């Protein structure tokens, strides 16, 4: 009953708005109309064939801006007769969107924030999907002299000591979270005129760092994709090229818990998670390149059990089992790199 009334109200509201816009001779009422009817029809006939079902995916800008999702989603849509509505935000914002029940599934890269999301019960059935790494980039003349350093924390400490300009995303994204983690590990609390938080996306941040001769932390994928437009160079490599493991950048997919939000399209969200972590999705990820370089390395397929991916990293199963779970996960990451990343990457 409640559902039917809601549908009716939705249809009435949308109809009113569309009707009104129709009077004013707008350009695409039919298009919008089709989509809304699909939206309501789709959720009703969930699990049946027929009208396309819609999946709302909240994800990070890095998966979207690199074009990876443009390679993955059409295949998924074809296979499952679905339509993916992708909202690309920072990881923090994407998780917040899902926390409000406004997305069906998230694809993000900030394990700490993901774990919190799981622990609060908003997400279920987390799976590792893929990884790449972060790199520390800076101007070619490397004013702080960090080039080739093997420790990200040492590099950050050197930048802080030299007072060389550093541009921070400052937007609660996965990259921003990682950057803060490194500062913390380096024992520096960045402040002063050399440290600029700009609250923007990765591309904006790279452009700004480029323009102001500054260092920044970037995911490798976006840096590679943006490379043509800027003059920054990688000063400290990530673990994909023998850099420090702290610069690892693992992505996870998490469906929103239908017990929290009964209206989320859970089965389709699970299908999406299954697609990304299945052979087909993993192969697409593996084959996706930009500027001739592979951007993401799939790591979902494994014959060995990898229980850690389903639960928060420090989850001890109710017993006081693992003090050193973080290093366990680091060890796992290093073995992925050994398995998945070619020697000559």
């Amino acid at each position, binding site marked *: 009953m409640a559902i039917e009334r809601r549908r009716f109200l939705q249809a009435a509201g949308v109809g009113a708005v569309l009707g009104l816009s129709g009077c*004013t001779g707008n350009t695409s009422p039919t298009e919008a109309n089709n989509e809304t009817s699909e939206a309501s029809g789709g959720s009703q006939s969930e699990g049946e064939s027929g009208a396309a079902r819609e999946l709302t995916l909240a994800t990070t800008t890095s998966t979207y801006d690199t074009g990876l999702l443009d390679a993955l989603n059409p295949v998924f849509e074809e296979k499952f007769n679905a339509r993916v509505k992708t909202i690309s935000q920072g990881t923090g914002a994407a998780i917040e969107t899902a926390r409000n029940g406004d997305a069906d599934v998230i694809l993000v890269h900030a394990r700490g924030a993901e774990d919190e999301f799981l622990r609060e019960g908003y997400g279920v059935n987390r799976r590792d999907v893929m990884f790449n790494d972060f790199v520390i980039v800076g101007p070619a003349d490397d004013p702080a002299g960090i080039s080739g350093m093997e420790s990200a924390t040492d590099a950050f400490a050197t930048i802080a000591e030299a007072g060389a300009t550093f541009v921070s995303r400052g937007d609660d994204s996965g990259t921003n979270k990682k950057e803060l983690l490194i500062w913390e590990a380096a024992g520096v609390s960045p402040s002063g005129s050399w440290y600029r938080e700009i609250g923007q996306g990765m591309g904006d941040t790279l452009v700004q760092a480029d323009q102001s001769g500054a260092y920044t932390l970037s995911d490798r994928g976006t840096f590679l994709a943006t490379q043509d437009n800027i003059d920054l160079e990688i000063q400290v490599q990530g673990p994909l090229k023998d850099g420090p493991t702290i610069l690892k950048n693992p992505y996870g997919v998490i469906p929103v818990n239908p017990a929290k939000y009964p*209206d989320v399209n859970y089965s389709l969200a699970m299908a999406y998670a299954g697609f990304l972590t299945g052979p087909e999705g993993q192969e697409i990820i593996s084959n996706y390149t930009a500027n001739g370089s592979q951007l993401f390395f799939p790591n979902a397929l494994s014959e060995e059990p990898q229980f850690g991916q389903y639960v928060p990293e420090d989850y001890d199963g109710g017993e006081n089992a693992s003090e050193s779970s973080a290093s366990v996960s680091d060890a796992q990451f290093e073995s992925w790199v050994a398995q998945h990343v070619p020697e000559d990457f």
Partner: protein
Amino acid sequence: MFGLGDLNLTYLVSITAVSLYVSTAAVALSAAIGLPLSLLVGFRDFTGKSAVTSLISTGMGFPSVVVGLVVLLTLSRSGPLGAFELLFTPEAMILSQTILALPVLVSVSLSAVQSVPQDLRDAAFAAGGTSTDVALLVVREARYGIVTALLAAYGRAISEVGSVLIVGGNIVFSDSTSFTRTLTTAITVEARKGNIETGIALGAILLALVLGVNALGARFRDRTPGRNGRGR
């Protein structure tokens, strides 16, 4: 992949269409609410009138991002209107754009209708007009200012980015057709990717649209007779 070639025609046409659809619907809604409101505020006394007036002038400078956040909270599934499932739809964008365009439209059209002399309203009444006729006459007399108000509201709606990004979600389907991506939010995507030239190209399209709408408005204003009338 990341150059101008990335922007295929379907994509350009559909983000432009979404921009036009959302802005036009928002301005139409604003006009439907705002014109009667400016007549009411202009010529009637009622309790709370000064509150309405100051709300309108405050609303002019209201940050669009805040409007976006408020609409987001309201339409979110965990919010009061969550049951309508309107978040991340063009309708949500129309709602936030209406909230943004309405104060602009009302304040400009208010000063336009208030500048219509009392004598003309009296003349319409004395000629046998009802209060509806008088209101219509005022709208007709103030048409120059009202068209300006509509254009100002349209300008605010179509060039706005903060709130549509938040409540629309900037969605494009995999066949390159836009669901909630507008020209402005497409520009933010290009900026994020560092594709400044592409962003500027989209900005040029936006500018052309605004110019076109203004030219249309100017044509309408200049074609109507008697706009130099009622000189004293």
